[in-house]
């Protein structure tokens, strides 16, 4: 840990001489090098994005790059890329733990270390962290790391995404810290170890070579900086980079009222049965400039692969605090300086091997973030942030084409993208990565050109957004038709309750759900030449429910009176040509009292079909006349009726 504790002179108050004494360079140089580090990781990521081979890297941006200082500084992680924060948050620890276990003194110029063990390094086994020591005058000055999702890492499910794997032996190959490259040559035994255990190696190998080349790019750019500014200035800039968010987080914590804040969230079930729910509990004690975030009371680890590891939970904690308290400075290891996380081993968010399998780690990490959002809502007041769609409801399909070529979908046909929650700044977007991802959405054209899949629908669902003065994002509905026989894992693990929690008087978004529509004996889209209806409950009678609170008769979504359908009832779905999976995400949470939303903003929502005319009256107290389908520009606000309706609501104490 860099030595800048509470009570040290803030950076802005340092004289030029004091600044130089602390950071081995002047302010200008520290700023230039700090920006240079961000440029380096972004350049590496952009280059990987452009040259990756597998869909999960090329179309999903499922990777992150970081820069960390050397062991004698305890590996401060100064810089993370603008991509998958669930990766980068854990990478401070992945780098430290891998290098320390392997032995920093054993590393030589030209080496690349790798590790994928979730318990040592966070995330899941497909996410290999490749670490390059960058030397200057025979000493390691910096570590540059690239963690990237590999399309497969063995285990019982092609591509790995499943909520029903029971232990570490089913999740896939675990790689302890070991060399991938030595003296800039691939270590044959390491590559054989992976390729003798993993599928789709024809894609893995070029991806890994591309990752290696981007580590070299990062190394070259860093060495240019050493030459120009000197190593002392570089190391000073690493300290400067982590001290800035450490200071700003401390100031943000100090501004909160002292006190104890509690929150929780529930995961529906694991993959064994639906008899157990899993609760994430958090108690946050704030005193002065410090926070203690205690997860005691959190449920024991799940029996299948929906657990997160300790470093995923640490990341979720840091990201939640950045969202709520200190969103304007960079996220790096300095954000945690005034935060202690108390985390019992063996919970759903701190799983242990071998019986606490970690694969869908975000399904436990996102509830950690939401529990912290709920806990701190009374403290941050109008700065509260509504919950997002939460669960990825991840879908993973595979099969072979008629010529025998294997295909696999990875997070392209489920509920992987969806809405955010509203904030004081405005309505939420309805389509993006979840709060701890900053990924791309695979293009429909890429999916349809490379896989035997037709994307039939990808659209918003009316009246699903959490209402509020600022509205949450709407649920996303996606219909995917599979053209060949196929097998699927489907993991919507958060449909009992909406993840999209409303805040500051806003309401929750609507729950999500998942169905399979068989073509044979059901709804054959290709034969009917028509899409499966969305809002007509009768359309769901011919479906097979996968997950959600559904009417047991019609099988349509019924949040209030429906029964829970458990996602694990069928660990591996088998489908025939033209069968359709439908995923609906949770809606995003609203912010503020919906009855105070300006009527013209409600009119626009009706015009854009986020809100129906009925819901406008019921949920916002705004009376709209006209027909949004046939004459959307002819919609109008009935001012008198709206005033009467809102007066009625005010008298009832609702507005």
């Amino acid at each position: 840990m860099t030595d800048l504790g509470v009570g040290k002179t803030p950076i802005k108050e340092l004289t030029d001489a004091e600044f130089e004494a602390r950071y081995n360079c002047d302010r200008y140089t520290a700023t230039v090098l700090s920006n240079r580090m961000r440029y380096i990781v972004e350049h590496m990521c952009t280059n990987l994005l452009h040259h990756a081979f597998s869909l999960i890297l090329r179309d999903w941006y499922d990777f992150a790059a970081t820069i960390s200082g050397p062991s004698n500084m305890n590996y401060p992680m100064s810089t993370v890329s603008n991509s998958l924060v669930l990766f980068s948050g854990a990478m401070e620890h992945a780098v430290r733990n891998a290098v320390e276990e392997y032995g920093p003194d054993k590393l030589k110029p030209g080496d690349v270390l790798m590790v994928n063990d979730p318990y040592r390094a966070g995330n899941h086994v497909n996410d290999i962290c490749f670490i390059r020591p960058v030397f200057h005058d025979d000493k390691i000055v910096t570590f540059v790391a690239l963690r990237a999702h590999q399309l497969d890492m063995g285990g019982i499910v092609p591509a790995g995404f499943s909520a029903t794997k029971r232990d570490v032996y089913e999740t896939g190959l675990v790689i302890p810290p070991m060399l991938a490259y030595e003296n800039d040559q691939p270590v044959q035994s390491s590559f054989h170890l992976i390729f003798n255990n993993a599928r789709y190696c024809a894609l893995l190998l070029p991806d890994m070579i591309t990752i290696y080349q981007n580590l070299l790019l990062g190394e070259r750019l860093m060495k240019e900086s050493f030459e120009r500014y000197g190593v002392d200035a570089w190391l000073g800039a690493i300290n400067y980079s982590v001290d800035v968010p450490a200071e700003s987080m401390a100031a943000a914590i100090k501004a909160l009222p002292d006190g104890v804040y509690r929150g929780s969230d529930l995961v529906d079930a694991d993959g064994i049965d639906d008899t157990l729910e899993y609760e994430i509990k958090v108690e946050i004690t704030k005193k002065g400039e410090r926070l203690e975030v205690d997860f005691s009371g959190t449920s024991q680890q799940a029996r299948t692969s929906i657990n997160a590891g300790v470093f995923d939970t640490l990341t979720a904690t840091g990201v939640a605090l950045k969202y709520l308290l200190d969103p304007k400075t960079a996220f790096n290891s300095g954000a945690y300086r005034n935060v202690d996380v108390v985390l019992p081993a063996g919970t759903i968010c701190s799983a242990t091997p071998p019986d606490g399998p970690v694969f869908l780690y975000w399904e436990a990490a996102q509830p950690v973030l939401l529990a912290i959002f709920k806990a701190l809502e009374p403290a941050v007041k109008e700065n509260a942030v509504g919950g997002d769609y939460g669960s990825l409801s991840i879908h993973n399909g595979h099969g072979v084409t008629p010529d025998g070529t294997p295909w696999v979908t990875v997070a392209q046909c489920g509920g992987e993208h969806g809405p955010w929650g509203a904030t004081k700044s405005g309505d939420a977007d309805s389509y993006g990565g979840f709060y701890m991802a900053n990924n791309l959405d695979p293009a429909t054209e890429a999916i349809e050109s490379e896989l035997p899949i037709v994307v039939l629908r990808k659209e918003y669902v009316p009246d699903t957004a959490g209402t509020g003065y600022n509205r949450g994002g709407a649920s996303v509905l996606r219909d995917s038709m599979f053209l060949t026989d196929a097998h699927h894992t489907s993991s919507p693990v958060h449909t009992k309750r909406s993840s999209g929690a409303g805040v500051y008087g806003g309401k929750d978004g609507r729950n999500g759900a998942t169905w399979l529509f068989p073509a044979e004996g059901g709804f054959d889209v290709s034969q009917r030449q028509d899409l499966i209806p969305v809002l007509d409950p009768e359309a769901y009678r011919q479906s097979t429910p996968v997950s959600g609170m559904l009417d047991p008769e019609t099988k349509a979504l019924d949040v209030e009176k429906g029964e829970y359908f458990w996602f694990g009832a069928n660990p591996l779905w088998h489908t025939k040509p033209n069968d359709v999976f439908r995923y609906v995400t949770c809606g995003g949470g609203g912010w503020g009292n919906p009855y105070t939303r300006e009527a013209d903003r409600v009119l626009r929502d009706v015009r854009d079909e986020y809100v129906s005319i009925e819901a406008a009256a019921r949920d916002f107290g705004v009376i709209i006349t006209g027909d949004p389908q046939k004459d959307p520009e002819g919609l109008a606000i009935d001012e008198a009726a709206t005033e009467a309706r809102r007066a009625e609501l005010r008298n009832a104490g609702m507005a």
Partner: protein
Amino acid sequence: MTDGPTVAPGLSVEREDVTEDELRELGIDTSGASASDFKRYPVLSEGGWYIVIKNQKTMETVHRTKWTLLGPIKLVTDGLHIA
């Protein structure tokens, strides 16, 4: 399903008592607080795992030492001596 689901049992971090002798040996100025105000337990923060001693009333950390890399997490290979 006949009965509703139950919530899986929770786990907690044990906060150990600290004696006056221990505090004295560590050179900790208790500023008038009694030893019973202090607890020892692991935390995860910037830089990894630590064992801290904190005054539970003020939440002031009076002692902080590095713990093992993985803290309370035990690998399946821990304890395996490979010659």
